[in-house]
Structures are given as C-alpha cells and as structure tokens.
C-alpha cells in the first residue's frame, strides 16, 4: 500500500503545480505578460485560507470562495499598478511582489508564526462531505484541475481568448478594434492570481502545514521550465511539461543522497532544462509562439 500512497502523493503534487503552470501559461504564454508574482499569490492564497480555517469558524466552502476572490483582486491590483509597464519591468515588479509577500509571511510573526509555520491546517470540507483520505483528496483535486483546464480551454478559444492572445501579438490591434487592452490585461492577471491562490489553498490543506518557504524562487524556476519544456501557449504541453518535471527528478529521491543535495540537484535540472530549451527551441516542445 505504501507505494500506492506514494503515487497518490505525486499525483496530488502534480495537480497543484499544474494549476500554477496553467496560470503562468495564461499570463505569459497567451497574454505575453511576464508575471513572476505567482509564488507570491500562491502564498497569499495559502495563508489566507489556512488562517481563516484556523482562526474562524467559517465553513470551508466560504473560506474557499473568499480566498479565490482575494486572489483575483490582488492580481487585478497588480495589473492596475503596472498598467503602463511591459516586458522587463512588469517581470521585475512582479518578482519584487513575490519577495515582499515572502518577507511579510516570514516576519509578521504574530499572524503567520514566521518560520515556525502553521501546523494542523484542517483538510477540505464541503457542506457535510469531509475530504480526508489520500484517495478522496486525489479525486477532489483532479476534479478541480480538470475543471480549471476545461475553463481555460473554453476561455482561450472564445472571442475574449483571441483578444488575450492579441495582447501578446499586437496590442495596437486590440485598441483599433474597440477593445481596451488594459481591461483585458487586468482580467488575465486577475484570473492568473485566482488560479495561483487556488494552488496555494490546495497545497496548504493537503499538507496541513504551511511556512513562508512553501512557495518561492524555486517554484518560479519549476513553473518556467515546465512551461518551456511543454510549450508556451499550449495547455496540454504545459501539463505534460509539469508531469515530466515532477517525475524525472523523483528518481533522485531513491539515491542515497542528503536532502539538501536532492534539492540542489532538482533546481540544477530545472535550470539546465530552461537553458537548453532556450538554446535549441525557445518555443518549447509543443509551443506555438516565439517570445523573441
């Protein structure tokens, strides 16, 4: 049974990180917006829902919805304060945002317990249905990831989705056709924020433990390498990339190595994958667009 549990665990991790990669694909792959705020947004989502669950008596469903709305709002606010910046500078502001969230989570000890982390976060519960065992969580999380995937595919192939892709390719054309590029940008970053905070919620309530290191620079490298491996602007490719990047470094776990070395090698693999793909095929394996 041990080995089954291990596979279920990997599957759950896959579904959580898929959400982050899909979210990044929406903003970078389809929208051309280099949004590095995702780990910060995931931390906000994870902390909001964990703290609300631990400190209030609100039902999980309500907390879930509140956190998602908050994620959308934060993404929307980021789009408002960066509405004149693109390319490099958007990446830098959102990068700084991730670090600010991290520093707050680490130092606002009266609220987040800092580096000690939040233990015993309850498992998800909807109405009377308590999601407790590994298999239940596995099914529930896959359901969510699947719904998100379908929603994104629907969105991207809708007229609005075309506008989102036009944001990447030719912003002027959107304005000429009577749509407001800033509103589309806000929508993209908002949805991206919502999906990242969703990933944060799922992470915290699965592991029942959360600390400021849960999402950070390492996850950013993971997301980017999954995205470039699978391909920008292709959600199926992005999922495949996520899957491969979770599976491949897992083999390291079975080698007799100290844990810091496993972590370091993992990051080395991810960063090498990015460098190699940028070198040979900047679109990614299934990618449709070229950022340069």
């Amino acid at each position: 049974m041990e080995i089954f549990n291990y596979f279920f665990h990997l599957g759950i991790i896959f579904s959580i990180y898929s959400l982050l990669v899909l979210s990044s694909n929406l903003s970078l792959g389809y929208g051309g917006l280099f949004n590095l705020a995702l780990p910060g947004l995931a931390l906000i989502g994870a902390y909001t829902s964990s703290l609300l669950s631990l400190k209030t008596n609100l039902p999980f469903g309500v907390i879930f919805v509140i956190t998602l709305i908050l994620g959308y709002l934060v993404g929307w606010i980021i789009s408002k304060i960066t509405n004149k910046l693109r390319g490099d500078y958007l990446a830098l502001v959102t990068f700084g945002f991730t670090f600010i969230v991290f520093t707050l989570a680490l130092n606002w000890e009266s609220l987040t317990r800092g580096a000690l982390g939040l233990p015993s976060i309850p498992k998800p519960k909807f109405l009377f249905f308590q999601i407790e065992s590994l298999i239940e969580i596995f099914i529930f999380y896959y359901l969510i990831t699947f719904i998100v995937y379908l929603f994104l595919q629907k969105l991207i192939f809708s007229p609005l989705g075309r506008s989102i892709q036009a944001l990447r390719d030719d912003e002027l054309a959107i304005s000429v056709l009577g749509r407001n590029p800033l509103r589309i940008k806000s929508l993209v970053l908002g949805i991206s924020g919502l999906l990242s905070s969703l990933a944060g919620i799922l992470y915290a309530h699965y592991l029942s433990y959360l600390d400021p290191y849960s999402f950070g620079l390492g996850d950013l490298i993971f997301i980017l390498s999954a995205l470039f491996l699978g391909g920008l602007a292709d959600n199926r490719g992005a999922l495949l990339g996520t899957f491969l990047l979770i599976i491949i470094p897992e083999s390291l776990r079975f080698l007799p190595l100290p844990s810091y070395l496993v972590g370091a090698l993992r990051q080395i693999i991810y960063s090498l994958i990015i460098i190699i793909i940028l070198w040979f095929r900047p679109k990614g394996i299934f990618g449709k667009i070229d950022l340069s």
Partner: protein
Amino acid sequence: MILQVIINSFITGGLYALIALGFSLLYNTFKFIPFFYGAFAIFAGYFLYLFNSINLPFSLGIILSFLVLIILGLLIDFFLLRKFRERKAGSVIMLILGLALGIFLENLLLAIFGPNIKSISLPFENITFNFFNSSLTLIQLIVIFISLSFLVITFFSIYKSRYGLVIRSLISNPLMAEILGVNKEDIFRKILIFTSLIAAIGGILYGIEYNLEPTAGTNLTIKAFTSAIIGGLEFLPGSIFGGFLLGFIENISVLFLPSAFKDGITFIILFLFLIFKPKGMFGKKTREEMSG
C-alpha cells in the same frame, strides 16, 4: 550611535555600490538584466575559501580566485551569452536565461559546498578600533577602502579615458558605435573581464565580512539590482549612489524596526521605485516611454 550607523552604512553601502556598478555595467552593455551576477560574485568567495583550505598562501589564493572568476565569466559568455547575442534574443528570453543561470550557479554552490555557513580565515589578526562609542574592525576598514577606491577608479576610467568613451558610445548607441569602427565583441569581452573582476572583489569582501552561504548570491543580486534601480539602471554613477543610499537606509531601519525586516526594506524600496520611478532618481524619462 549615529556615527556607528554611518560607519556601517559605508561598509554595506560600499559593497552594494561595487556589486551594483558591475551589475549595471553588464546591464548597459549586454542589454539584459544579469540576475546571475550575485551568485557569480559569491563564487569568488567560495574559491578563496577552497584555496585557503588547501593551504595556499592567502595572497596567492586571492589572485587565483580573481583569475578563476574571470575565466568563468569568459566561459559563460563564450558558450552561452554570445549565442543569444548573435541570435538577437528578446528581452524576456534574456531575463529568463539570467534567472535560470543564477539559480544554476547558486545550486551548484549548494551541491558542492553544502548548506553550512563557511567563513574565510584571515592570515592576520582582525584588530578592532574603538572611538566615540563606535567600533570598526580592520577588515571593515579594508572593505571601505577597497570599495571606495575601486569605485573611483571605475568612475574615472569610464568618464575620463578614451576607452571609457568607447564603452559609453556602445551603451548609448550600439549601432552607431559599430559603424564608426568599434569592435563590439572585443569590448564585450573586456567589459566581461572587468565586471568579473569587480564581482570577484565584491564576492571576496562580502565573504570575509558576512561569511559565505550558497543563498548569499540571490541576496546580493537583489541588493545590486535595487541599488541600480534607485540610481537608474541606465545611469552608471547612479548605481553607486543607489548602493550607498540602500546601505544607509538598511542600517537606519535597524534602529526603528526589528532586524529581520532589514531585507524586507530592500524589497519595499525596490517595489516602490519600480512602480513610481522606474527610471530611478536621476532618470528623465517618464513611465509612458517604458511601455510597449
């Protein structure tokens, strides 16, 4: 008390200014944000530690670390940056490349040297000077002296020499400089050697003053980057000013805030500058010119 703050500001500020100068010199000539620069600089500290531990004389160790870092810099340029430069890769691609390279170098250090803090042992006794209730160690005096003198040398060689004129022409109008017969690749190589040397000095001074940790690289990159943004990324002396200002703000903040917030202050300054004054304190261009 205030004297001690000023002394400390000169120590940290001098270091930040030095690294920031190399950072913005690289940024302005290579036209991409070198997110790997901090990790690269820390390599020099680790090399010195390594040469020390095999009982090489201290001075020889320092010279060897300089050489190794310059060779490493040239290798990175020859095998990686040059290819992307020839391909005229877009700024987003270069940003991702820099980020991946930084993570790669940092985790390489972690994999080789492990997560424990290493300290560089000195061949002489570190005397402490006490005056007016403040203290200053010999090493700190050396740090201040070397960083200040190196800043002056760099400043004059860029603004007062013929060679500096060539570099500045390459920064302000690369195409025109090439038409007028500047050998671009040759200048690139020389700048790389020079910035590698700055990185080596900065990394070694940092290692001696604060000890070595694999994650110090990212920390240093963020400080350098924030300093450069404060002074204006495209204005070289600005980064020196930014470095000293950042050092001063950090040391002042310790008086009012818990010391854990010292790093948080950096991110908040970075964030505020990116949003409200992305061209830095001396920048003339407005936000609008950054879009598109």
